[in-house]
């Protein structure tokens, strides 16, 4: 059991978006740190802005976790993204008993070339501090068929070859997330940074990218403190944000 992550569990029969529900909770009161809003039937799950996160009912984990990373300045917020991605990756590694679990920049979780989990973090910022973070996680557990439009999906069941107990997965994932969050809180930035880079999908590899609408071959050098992807092309290293570079997989 995790110490505080998921201890206070708000279980919803169905929800349009657990992130929205959690954000509304925060507007009314200050729930305990580690509060999780969970549903097994999410109808309008959100990914990045216009994108959706689709999940088959009662097959997967879709939930939103509330943390108060007030110790993080706004300029350090990508550390939170790294820590959470590592927490999910740690869990997938140990549960599926595989090594090839990667974080595709900035924070998608991949097994091989396939996406197994997505993360959507929504912070509330007051001045220079992050007063709260709603961390939405969608993890494919027992779903084995996906709509065609979804690129490269995979689930734990597809890897492990057997059905997994959702409740057990949830508890273990909470432990993994909390461990990484505590690492962040303890100021172990270097460890998180090192582990994030170790898990970074395509690191030191030459790949095809679409950069500012042009096809380019570039090598992934790393991710800078602001969370930008550093790419080297023709001997020049440039840091890009997610609006300027697209992975070609």
């Amino acid at each position, binding site marked *: 059991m995790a110490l505080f992550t998921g201890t206070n569990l708000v279980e919803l029969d169905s929800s349009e978006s657990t992130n929205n529900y959690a*954000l509304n909770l925060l507007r009314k009161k200050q729930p305990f740190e580690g509060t999780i809003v969970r549903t097994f039937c999410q109808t309008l799950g959100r990914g*990045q*802005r*216009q994108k959706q996160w689709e999940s088959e009912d009662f097959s997967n984990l879709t939930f939103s976790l509330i943390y108060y990373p007030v110790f993080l300045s*706004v*300029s350090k*917020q*990508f550390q*939170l*993204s790294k820590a959470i991605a590592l927490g999910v990756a740690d869990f997938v590694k140990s549960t599926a008993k595989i090594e090839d679990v990667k974080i595709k920049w*900035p*924070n998608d979780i991949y097994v091989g070339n396939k996406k197994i989990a997505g*993360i*959507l*973090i*929504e*912070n*509330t*910022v*007051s*001045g*220079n501090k*992050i*007063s709260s973070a709603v961390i939405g996680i969608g993890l494919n557990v027992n779903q084995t068929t996906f709509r065609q439009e979804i690129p490269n999906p995979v689930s734990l069941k597809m890897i492990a070859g057997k059905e997994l107990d959702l409740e057990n997965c949830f508890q273990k994932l909470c432990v993994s997330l909390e461990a990484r969050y505590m690492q962040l809180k303890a100021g172990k930035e270097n460890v998180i940074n090192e582990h994030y880079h170790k898990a970074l999908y395509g690191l030191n590899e030459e790949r095809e990218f679409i950069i500012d609408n042009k096809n380019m071959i570039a090598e992934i050098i790393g991710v800078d403190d*602001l*969370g*930008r992807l550093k790419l080297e092309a023709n001997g020049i290293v440039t840091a890009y*944000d*997610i*609006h300027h570079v697209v992975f070609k997989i």
Partner: protein
Amino acid sequence: MNLKEIQELIKFVSKAGVSEVEIQQKDFKIVIKTTNGEHGAVTAAPQVISVAQPVAQVAAAPVASQPEAATEKPADNGKTITIKSPMIGTFYRSSGPDKPSYVNVGDEIKQGSVICIIEAMKLFNEIEAEVSGRIVKVLIDDSSPVEYDQPLFLVEPY
């Protein structure tokens, strides 16, 4: 200065035929302007006052319904506060493409109310106001990139 005194003052100013009167006492300041220097009728008076500090709550309501051109005036004489971006990212005025803007010109904001979103590397940051007041100007277009410390809003504080 109480509301009755302010009303008396407005009456006096409009009768006197001056275009602008500014009175400052300790932590209180009131500016009364008449439109185009005309003798404003008493009923029109709330249009032309702008008030800062303690009595703001009383005087604020009628002001908020004013056209933008009039409410932007205080921006020129240094009574506004600039809300700046706490980070590099992309500025969004609403929570989604089909959602209404968090704030528009003329809206009252309170300390702690969400005024915009700034996204950076897939982290979405709801930015809370640190002051209470009224939005005088929105300085950035929706979905535009912003730099650290770049001015986002002009606010007339209460």
